[in-house]
């Protein structure tokens, strides 16, 4: 098992990949992807039981990850490539014509590691429930992980899913919320306040864990607790910084959907060690 120190090195490369991908495409969503780098890396390089060399859509006997907030695809793509699902050099095609790395992820493009399309928000938690219940029917004791955005919590379907997962005791489902407090139009609190998000999930019957989303050890512990929680689903509220890792991008909604220019890219990359070799 890799140490957290090693995971930090991988996360640094993922952040570099994200920045170079959106810069190369002259567009994309770097903010959220940078903010979720630790989660992506922790799941794919330590927590998940999975088989990058031989991707199977069914995922039987493997942990499954569903990215519900599909716009942060650059983070997922980099992690999948670095984990060995497809060649790292393919990252250069993101958002370009004839690419398998579509703006938002989709199995329609036959990219190894992607099992569902996402982009239109609010659907991933429901999809994760289905995948988790299929595992129960298959007597498959692996888990399903779903990542959602915090702004995404404004979608009604999320709460249909939250109600269902508790009612049906879908305890092999672990949800994460990228709680960075930002959305396209500004701070969440101004656009549409979520109130006490943890309390809302508790009231729906979920186990709720709050962690700092950039601390591997805390995230790791939270996932362990979630796995041991039986009879109800768990949601892990990850307090994160949108744009984490690059000082001038962190903590603001301004980099939600904007690519850095040449100068900004160089300033950003200077803050992130190239640990695994750029694509």
């Amino acid at each position, binding site marked *: 098992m890799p140490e957290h120190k090693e995971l930090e090195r991988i996360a640094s490369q993922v952040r570099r990949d994200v920045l170079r991908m959106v810069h190369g495409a002259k567009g994309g969503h770097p903010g959220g992807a940078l903010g979720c780098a630790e989660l992506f890396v922790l799941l794919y390089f330590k927590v998940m039981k999975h088989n990058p060399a031989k991707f199977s*859509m*069914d*995922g*039987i006997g493997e942990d*499954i990850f*569903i990215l519900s907030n599909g716009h942060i695809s650059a983070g997922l793509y980099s992690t999948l490539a670095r984990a060995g699902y497809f060649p790292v050099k393919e990252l250069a095609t993101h958002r370009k014509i004839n690419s398998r790395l579509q703006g938002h992820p*989709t*199995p*329609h493009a036959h990219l190894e590691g992607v*099992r*569902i*399309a*996402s*982009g*239109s928000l*609010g*659907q*991933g938690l*429901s*999809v*994760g*429930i*289905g*995948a*988790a*219940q*299929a*595992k129960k*029917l*298959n007597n*498959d004791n692996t888990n399903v992980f779903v990542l959602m955005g915090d702004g995404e919590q404004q979608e*009604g*379907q999320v709460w*249909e*899913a939250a*109600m*269902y997962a508790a*009612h*049906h005791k879908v305890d092999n489902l672990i949800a994460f919320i990228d709680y960075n407090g930002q959305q396209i139009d500004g701070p969440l609190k101004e656009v549409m306040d979520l109130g006490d998000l943890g309390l809302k999930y508790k009231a729906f019957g979920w186990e709720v864990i709050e962690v700092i989303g950039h601390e591997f050890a805390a995230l790791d512990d939270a996932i362990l607790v979630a796995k041991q929680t039986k009879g109800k689903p768990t949601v892990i509220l990850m307090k994160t910084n949108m744009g984490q890792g690059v000082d001038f991008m962190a903590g603001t909604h301004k980099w939600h959907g904007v690519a850095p220019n040449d100068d900004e890219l160089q300033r950003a990359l200077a803050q992130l060690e190239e640990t695994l070799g750029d694509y």
Partner: protein
Amino acid sequence: MKKYTFTEKKDTRSGFGDAMTELGKSNPNVVALCADLTGSLKLEKFQQLYPERFFQVGIAEANMISIAAGLTIGGKIPFTATFANFSTGRVYDQIRQSVAYSGKNVKICASHAGLTLGEDGATHQILEDLGLMKMLPEMVVINPCDYNQTKAATKAIAEYVGPVYLRFGRPAIPVFTAADQVFEIGKAWTVNEGKDVSIFATGHMVWEAIKAGEILAEKGIDAEIINIHTIKPLDEKAILTSVKKTGCAVSAEEHNILGGLGESIARTLSVHAPAPLEMIGTQDTFGESGTPDQLMEKYGLTANNIVEASLKAIERKRK
């Protein structure tokens, strides 16, 4: 005109429910999801016999469609069940992204389609669903015509890998197709061979087309009646072969003339072999409360309307 008789009337939704019971036994991967309409969708027996494979989702159709997409990831074959309106318009984006675009093997099964839902009125009488669903790339769209055909279609779509929309209805109607039929997706069924006009009918309108054929026969007109149970993929070959022989066509569906079977036939004919076409369907309007018979009469969806349309089509071809 070939003689069609029936000994009983049954609702097409019971064909769905009975097939599901059989599928529950024959195919362990078949699972059912229902949004608080288990009785209306005739799934009580499936629920009772296979409780671990029946998922009650409550009144949350969007959640139901996306959960179904997720279940396919574990190799399951999910059949979602609710009224046609809540199966399509209400959840279009979930179907588009989580099912169709994701290429998931989900069967969207929709009852109470069209005017024959009756007294509940226009909120529940969707007349746009065929159009909505046929517009989605890779979606198969099926609208069977009686109990037996619905039962056969339900079993057939379990074998087919890919997203399917299966549309059926509420009222008891004549059972006139064979109980032992093999349902072939995308293959039209020639109900009656004729030479004067081609009548292409789907769903509840097939029986009306048969009655129309009998009336036309009394007038000395030899109508070819073809059941287009699969709206997509459309059996273009059957349509073109028939119209080549008859020279004119009538389409009949319990659906808006915009976006339905009639438009698909119009496209096929205009691209390959233009010929006069008359369309029977609702005229870009909402429905209303009433008995099924009253509504079909008021909105022009009866055998007599098909007869009139046929006479008009024949007249146009002679000009």
